[in-house]
């Protein structure tokens, strides 16, 4: 069993396509709970969950307050709320936008790092700003796993590039290779990464 208890994915511009590739490549029995923060306008309908659900055996839903983190499940941060990670569940928060974003990727990654320490993996995908960089840095500082989509394969390179500048030691992965890497992560004992 893996030492990783949670994977948090952050993405912005181009995120729907990137998330689709990832969830399509994961089995319904994927053992690590997943949370994704995708920048969206506050008026967005809950279409993102429906679109992703069509492509995956995972259970995808837009998070409601205090929803549990569980294996085989992908929770999406709802528009206009920050999503915070508690021990085995999530909380929502309507505090101010961070870097013009709510949900903020940094907010979720940082709370994941503070709650799960070395037992969390953060993954920054395509996006046109630098949200996620500070959060991924915090995950690395707490001993967690930092993953970044290869900026050269990303629809928009700015966000993964910023994450790499903040965490130069992060593992860089082409989008197509990410599902397999996450499956391997699930099999990887925590001590091997020390």
């Amino acid at each position: 069993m893996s030492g990783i208890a949670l994977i948090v994915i952050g993405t912005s511009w181009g995120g729907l396509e990137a998330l689709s590739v990832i969830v399509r490549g994961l089995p319904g029995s994927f053992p690590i709970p997943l949370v994704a923060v995708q920048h969206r306008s506050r008026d967005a309908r809950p279409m993102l969950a429906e679109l992703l659900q069509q492509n995956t055996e995972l259970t995808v839903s837009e998070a409601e307050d205090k929803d549990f983190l569980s294996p085989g499940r992908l929770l999406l941060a709802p528009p206009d709320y920050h999503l915070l990670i508690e021990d085995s569940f999530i909380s929502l928060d309507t505090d101010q936008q961070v870097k013009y974003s709510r949900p903020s990727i940094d907010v979720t990654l940082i709370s994941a790092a503070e709650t799960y320490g070395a037992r969390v993996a953060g993954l920054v995908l395509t996006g046109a700003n630098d949200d996620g960089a500070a959060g991924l840095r915090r995950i690395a500082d707490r001993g967690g796993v930092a993953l970044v989509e290869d900026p050269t394969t990303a629809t928009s390179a700015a966000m993964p590039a910023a994450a790499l500048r903040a965490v130069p030691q992060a593992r860089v992965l082409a989008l197509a290779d990410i599902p397999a890497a996450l499956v391997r992560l699930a099999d990887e004992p925590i001590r091997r990464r020390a």
Partner: protein
Amino acid sequence: MTLAAAPLTYDPEIERIEIALLLEGIFRHYGFDFRSYAYSSIRRRVWKRIEAESLSSISALQELILHDRQAMERLLHDLSVNVTAMFRDPEFYVAFREKVIPHLRTFPFVRIWHAGCATGEEAYSMAILLQEEGLFDRSRIYATDMNEIVLQKAKEGIFPLERMQEYTQNYLRAGGTQSFSKYYTAKYDGALLSRHLLRNIVFSQHNLVTDRSFAEFHVILCRNVLIYFDRTLQGIVHELLFSSLATFGVLALGSKESLKFSPNEPCYEVLDLSAKLYRKVHSTCPASPSS
């Protein structure tokens, strides 16, 4: 962001102790009870305040706020003030017009409790909606918050002018039937809400965690307030809301909240799932299932 404030040596267990001591100190000295608030949210806001005060630890913040009432006011602001907007989630107001207003018309007088009203934007929104539905003159909105300072702002009813464009759009999408500009006067850099809307709104202090029920209501709005509580406290406050609601009264929650963790869930029926409108259908609740 609170990056600079992150301690170099970090021990989550010590942090948990420090936060518990801070919240205990606030409760004992000032009476505000944050002890059962959602931990991650409290932790984040506490670190924001530590950074703003140029401190480096939770214990240092504890020392400061216990001896400096002004610093406590600033922390209270961080812990309690939440972002809101007029006609936030316009589709909620559409559903309210369609599914709740017809029921309210059957009463000679309507009492509405807006619990956790913050600076009052949503209470004024409800007043406008009731006015347009011809119900405002026989309604009273009791808008409460635990924070006196935000209540003072709510009573003033002056909102930033630069948000009026957004509020106008929200108002129209919420089913508004008039010109939104008739409800406010531009004044200096603020928009002063029509004083007529205040005639049936009562703003007063009430703390959901430490105070009791104070009346029976036909509608209780408690939107994006319970998300700040842990599950246990949510259950306790749900009981308070339930006992403050008339039979067939309506409970409105935030768009990402639900009754699924509430022991009172079996006593409600869903009036509108996406608008989070629930109707109380049993006057007494069966004993909550032990979990």
